[in-house]
C-alpha cells in the first residue's frame, strides 16, 4: 500500500513537472520567434534603406531618365511607368532577387523630382523622396 502511494506521488510530480516545462518552453518559443521576426524586419529595413540611398545617389548624379537607368545598372528596366531594378540578398543587382526598387523621374523646369520605393515580395518596406536640378529648363524661378 505504501509503495503504491509513493509511486503515484512520483508520477503525479513527474506529470506536473513535465506540464510546467512544456508550458514554459512553449512561451519561450513564442518569445524567440518574436525576436527572430523583429531582427528580420530590422535587417530588411536596413537593406531597403541602403538600396534606396544608392538609388537616390544615382538620381543626384543623373541628368535624364535614360542616364538614371544606365546608372542603376544593366538590369534596370521599366516598371509600370517608372524605372526599376531588382537586388539580391547581398544587395547586388539580381533580376530574380527579392528586393525591388522603383523610381519615378518627373522633370519640370529642370528640376527632376523622384520618389524611390523599395519593396520585398510585393510589400513596400521603405520609400523616400529626392530631387535634382539638371538646369536643362534654364531655371524658371
Amino acid at each position, binding site marked *: 500500500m505504501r509503495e503504491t502511494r509513493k509511486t503515484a506521488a512520483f508520477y503525479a510530480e513527474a506529470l506536473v513537472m513535465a506540464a510546467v516545462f512544456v508550458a514554459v518552453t512553449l512561451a519561450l518559443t513564442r518569445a524567440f520567434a518574436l525576436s527572430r521576426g*523583429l531582427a528580420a524586419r530590422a535587417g530588411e529595413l536596413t537593406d531597403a534603406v541602403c538600396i534606396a540611398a544608392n538609388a537616390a545617389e544615382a538620381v543626384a548624379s543623373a541628368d535624364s531618365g535614360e542616364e538614371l537607368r544606365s546608372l542603376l545598372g544593366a538590369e534596370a528596366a521599366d516598371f509600370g511607368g517608372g524605372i526599376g531594378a531588382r537586388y539580391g540578398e547581398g544587395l547586388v543587382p539580381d533580376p530574380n532577387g527579392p528586393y525591388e526598387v522603383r523610381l519615378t523621374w518627373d522633370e519640370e523646369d529642370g528640376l527632376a523630382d523622384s520618389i524611390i520605393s523599395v519593396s520585398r515580395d510585393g510589400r513596400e518596406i521603405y520609400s523616400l523622396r529626392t*530631387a535634382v*536640378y539638371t538646369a536643362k529648363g534654364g531655371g524658371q524661378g
Partner: protein
Amino acid sequence: MRGAPVKLGPLALLLCVITICLAVMALLSITTARADNRLAERYAETVRTRYELEREGQAFLRELDGEINNGGLPAADSAAEDGAVERVFELDGTTLTVRVDTTRPDSRGRAFTVTQWRIEKSWSENESLGRLWGGK
C-alpha cells in the same frame, strides 16, 4: 510510520536550471532584436530627412538659377557678399546649408557655382547620469 515525502529530484533541478537559462536567453534576444529594430527605424528616418533636405536644396538652386537669369538675386538667409548667397534649410533637427557663388557659372550650364553643401544634425550631450552617483 508514514511514507517519506516525495523530494525534488535531480531531474527537476535540471529542468529548473534549463528553464531559467532559456528564459534569460529569450529576454536577451528580444531586447537585442528590439534595439536593432529601433536603430534601423532611426537610420531610415535620418536617410529620409537627408534626401528631403536635398530636395529642398535642389529646388532652391532652380529658384536661384531663374532669379539670376532674370537679372536679380533671391532673398537669402545671409546677405550676399562678393556674389555669395547662403540659405539654411531645417527639418527634424537636421540642417542643410547651401552656399553658392553667383559670379561664376558652373560646368553644367548653371549661372552659379555651389561652394558649400553641408548637412548637419544638431546634437546635445546628455548630461543626466540617470540613477548613477554624481560624485558629490
